[in-house]
């Protein structure tokens, strides 16, 4: 089969850089164009210095994009949707990493993004690009959405419990997410100024975080409650001293008395065949639970748990690299699903230790 030709838009950003890093080593993909609104004419490696001698491409203007097989959109929220028809005319498959097409329900979008979605009909067509949950739909998809980095960790961590109907939905689901600075993208601001950001443990969104909507959509579907999610979801996000990495600590209450071995069985069955999900729960040692540090650059999501039997409280930990399994790596995995390739193509980097 000939190479699939891809274009990347928003070329100077972090997720675009990660897509390039991964796709340059993908055996089925040729990178045809990388478009930039701010750096057209410059070499890719002048913005993504790790790619020097690996990529000789220069960035082009958005207007100079030509037809190809797949377009990845790596722009801020609200940007992709403005020109989505143009991108869909340029390529039969569009993968948008922003939040513009993550939600199926226009009502959910309105509630969490505070405005009407301009293309509600496209929301219904798009596929939430999480291969672990939507592998079959991805095979046929023309419009694939990326996933929120913290949402990805939380959803993967909690999915087996919701699917098995083990969660007491009369009690709150509490999700605390810690995240590194690269999740905020490459555009600097006062909050990312080094003297202020360095060393920070900053509660930046204790309530109202939009990734909540993705949990409601995906966990609600697994629980069979669809659009009528009633459970209290308490999601909070904290910026910590990492460049890459997400650690989600989720607390759920179970609706029945369970032994930890049953939980082990549940997670093992759910994820045995998943190439990028690993269960991490050791009795001793330093890396007893998921730790984002050793996942930097890899497409793994590590998941662990601990049961507080007396309270039927299960603490689920899930870690990933926000730029990889939380964005670009997951998008490449979705691409692999879309074309029926081995899902691990281009994604075999195991991370570093020590780092």
């Amino acid at each position: 089969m000939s190479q699939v030709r891809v274009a990347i838009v928003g070329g100077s950003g972090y997720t675009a850089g990660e897509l390039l890093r991964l796709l340059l080593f993908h055996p089925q993909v040729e990178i045809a164009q990388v478009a930039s609104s701010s750096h057209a004419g410059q070499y890719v490696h002048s913005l993504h210095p790790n790619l020097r001698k690996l990529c000789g491409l220069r960035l082009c203007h958005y207007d100079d994009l030509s037809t190809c097989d797949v377009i990845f959109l790596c722009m801020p929220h609200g940007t992709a949707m403005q020109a989505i028809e143009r991108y869909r005319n340029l390529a039969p498959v569009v993968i948008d990493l922003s939040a513009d097409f993550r939600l199926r329900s226009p009502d959910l979008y309105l509630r969490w993004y505070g405005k009407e979605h301009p293309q509600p009909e496209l929301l219904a067509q798009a596929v939430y690009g999480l291969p672990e949950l939507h592998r079959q739909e991805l095979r046929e998809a023309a419009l694939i959405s990326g996933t929120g980095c913290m949402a990805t960790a939380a959803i993967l961590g909690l999915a087996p419990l919701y699917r098995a109907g083990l969660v007491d939905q009369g009690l709150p689901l509490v999700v605390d997410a810690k995240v590194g600075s690269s999740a905020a993208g490459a555009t600097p601001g006062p909050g990312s100024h080094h003297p202020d950001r360095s060393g920070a443990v900053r509660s930046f969104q204790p309530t109202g975080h939009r990734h909540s909507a993705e949990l409601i959509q995906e966990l609600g579907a697994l629980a069979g409650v669809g659009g009528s999610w009633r459970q209290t979801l308490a999601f909070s996000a904290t910026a910590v001293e990492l460049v890459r990495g997400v650690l989600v600590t989720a607390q759920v209450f179970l609706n029945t008395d369970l032994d930890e071995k049953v939980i082990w069985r549940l997670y093992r069955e759910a994820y045995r065949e998943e190439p990028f999900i690993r269960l991490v729960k050791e009795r001793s040692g330093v890396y007893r639970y998921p730790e984002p540090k050793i996942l930097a650059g890899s497409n793994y999501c590590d998941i662990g748990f601990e049961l507080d039997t007396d309270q039927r409280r299960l603490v689920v930990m899930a870690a990933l690299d926000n730029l990889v399994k939380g964005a670009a790596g997951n998008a490449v995995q979705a691409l692999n699903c879309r074309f029926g390739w081995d899902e691990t193509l281009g994604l075999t980097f195991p991370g570093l230790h020590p780092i």
Partner: protein
Amino acid sequence: MSKLVALCPECEAEIDLQNRLVGEIVYCPDCNAELEVTNLEQPAVALAPRVEEDWGE
């Protein structure tokens, strides 16, 4: 030939007891529990006593 496999008492992972001896210490590949081989006829392992780690307050 029947499989010489015991289940980890902590996490139910399969523990391969091929070429092991009763009394030997083995480790669970999934949860890293330290396990003592207690029976090879009816393959079984038991959690070995462990020293608690102190992670401070």
